[in-house]
């Protein structure tokens, strides 16, 4: 039996201590220690620091943001790190938007990517479930496209549970947050600036702000700024 915590100075803390005394000794302040999750790093130092080492394996992570915000680039950085480390990844592409040339430029080993070109986002959702069941994929990227379909909360919970049974990092790309409480982490991206430089002008770089808006265990609402290099001209 754990005694209730001693009342510190603030009125709120005193009120909490009172409530705990009233509710009985079964309740206590605090929770289970945070589980140490294996991580899939992105290779972007600022982002990996923000996420505590990378995207958590066995969990659902959302990356949301408007068009041209850098979410696809972030996802490709994740795939690049995983495939170059010898792991196998999968893309359930509900928008048919995966660009192999971009992925190769980002360093993704294409041989180790299983690409499912779904005809519609719902197909991609079902495909992601199948991919999670296969186990052994380091990352399953679910791209819901724009605009994403309305997905029932139960479906997100099912996906999150399927991911929890594996060591796969499930990453969902969408225009706006959709997975809600099923997500372990949620990132929202906002474009800062695109740098066209030189003569003739070239798309040299793109800056984006990545905000960690949800973290199930621990504080959120932190943001970092990341610079992405423009691709060589077509």
């Amino acid at each position, binding site marked *: 039996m754990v005694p209730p915590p001693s009342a510190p100075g603030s009125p709120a803390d005193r009120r909490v201590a009172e409530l705990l005394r009233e509710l009985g000794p079964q309740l206590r302040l605090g929770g289970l220690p945070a589980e140490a999750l294996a991580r899939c790093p992105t290779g972007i130092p600022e982002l990996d620091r923000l996420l505590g080492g990378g995207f958590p394996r066995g969990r659902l992570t959302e990356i949301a943001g408007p068009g041209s915000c850098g979410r696809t680039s972030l996802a490709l950085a994740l795939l690049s790190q995983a495939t170059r480390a010898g792991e196998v990844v999968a893309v359930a592409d509900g928008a048919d938007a995966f660009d192999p040339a971009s992925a190769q430029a980002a360093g993704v080993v294409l041989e180790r990517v299983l690409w499912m070109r779904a005809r519609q986002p719902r197909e991609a959702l079902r495909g992601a479930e199948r991919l999670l069941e296969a186990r052994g994929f380091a990352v399953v990227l679910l791209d819901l496209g724009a605009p994403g379909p309305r997905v029932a909360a139960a479906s997100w919970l099912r996906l999150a549970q399927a991911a929890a049974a594996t060591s796969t990092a499930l990453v969902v790309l969408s225009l706006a947050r959709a997975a809600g409480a099923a997500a372990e982490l949620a990132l929202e991206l906002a474009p800062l600036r695109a740098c066209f430089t030189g003569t*003739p002008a070239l798309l040299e770089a793109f800056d984006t702000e990545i905000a960690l808006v949800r973290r199930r265990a621990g504080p959120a609402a932190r943001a970092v700024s990341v610079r992405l290099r423009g691709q060589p001209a077509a």
Partner: protein
Amino acid sequence: MRVACCLVPDLPLAAQLRAEPELAGLPLVLASGTGPRAEIIGVSPEAARRGVRRRGSVAHARTLCSELRVRALSPALEQTARDALLDAALGCAPRAMLAPRASGAYAAEAAVLLDASGVTPLFRSEAGFAAALAARAGALGLPGCVAIASSRCVAHLAARRLAGAAGEVCVLPPGSESAWLAPLPIDLLGPDDALAETLSGLGVRTLRDLLRLPRRALGARLGPPVLRLVALARGEEPDLPLPVPEPSSLFEAIDLEFAVERLEALGFLLQGLLSRLLARLEARRLACGELGLVLSLEGGGRDARRIGLAAPTLDLRVLVRLVCASLEARPPSAAVVAAALETEGRPLALDQLDLFRPAGPAPAALGRTLAELAALSGRERVGAPEVADDHRPDAFGLTPFLPSNRGCASRVEDQAHVLAVRALRPPVAAEVRTQHGRPEWIRSAVASGRVVQIAGPWRTTGGWWSREQRFAYDYFDVQTSDGSLARLRFDHLERRWQIDGVYD
């Protein structure tokens, strides 16, 4: 040489029970059809105890036994059961062959002969080998008896002698065959009806009686068939070495008495076929490779399909899911009246893990997943992406997903993070207002507004040798006032603006 013979006395009945194990212990008859006038060809012991006999009609049998189950004789089931018997033998010895089909009273039997030389160290004794063979046949749904002797014909006769006692074994030590054969009834040699009647008239009841008669005189009066019987009775049948069978595909089939329309019911039936196929593969220590499924449809149609596997497997659940996924993706065009499954046995693939590489999906699970994804989106839309050898910026390809170690760095190096393109397939049409040939305003579904920053154009042309393949584009990277960063192109051949990708 020592030869073992595994014999199933009533193969049609055993084949039916193998396909429908729930009928075991019930009064069952096999008939030439399902109508009341159909002739009864096979009778289970339970039905025989109620007075049902062969060659009677189904209607008469029903009057004797109200709970009688009637099934039409299925040549397909019989053939697959015969093959399964050979599989059981090949699981015990590499040299085996099916005995030629007998006639007369033994027409319903099926026997397999296999080389039993030198089996003692493996099975402790010949009796142990015989018991293992009987158990293996029983596991495939073919309860039989096994006899071991020094020649094929004696082993076959000894097994016939045991018929009716499934699982029984008999081992005749070398040199004891003649003494053992002598008191056996002459019917055991399976003479045709006319010869049996003649021999009976001569007072020949046993093999000993036959051997007492002068061989030359018998031959002169009754012809070559009686000489063959004499050779069999003496155990003098020439024994050639047993062959090693050619590798062949395994086949399981079923003829349905009613047409099946619902996929769920069809999946249930195919599950039975698959389980029997897997049992045979397991008996031969093989695994299931690519599956061929042939459905005979009502009205005479035929639906044939191949179901690929990434790796050989013996997992029934996986195979059922793959078959069901294939049927859901492309349902048969009519009700199904017969189904057949075929596969070539493959050695079971073992997962070889790499010390320095993370383990990916297990081959069997990957095969199942690939098949399920293909069923969802189409086989041509699932695979590993590749950059096509083409000058078009939007060109790409898909190859079969076979992850390998190639291209994997042993150490992940730092790399600059590039801005990726989200492809738009097909490209989105754009209305563009230009000034001096450069876009100034854009209106489209993905990017609209004033062009605030621009790079380009970069001209790319190719495919000039073919009307269908030629292209000529001017590409621009543009940022519009709504914040979109798009890859805009002007198609010189079609004289139109398009956005084929968005930087994201």
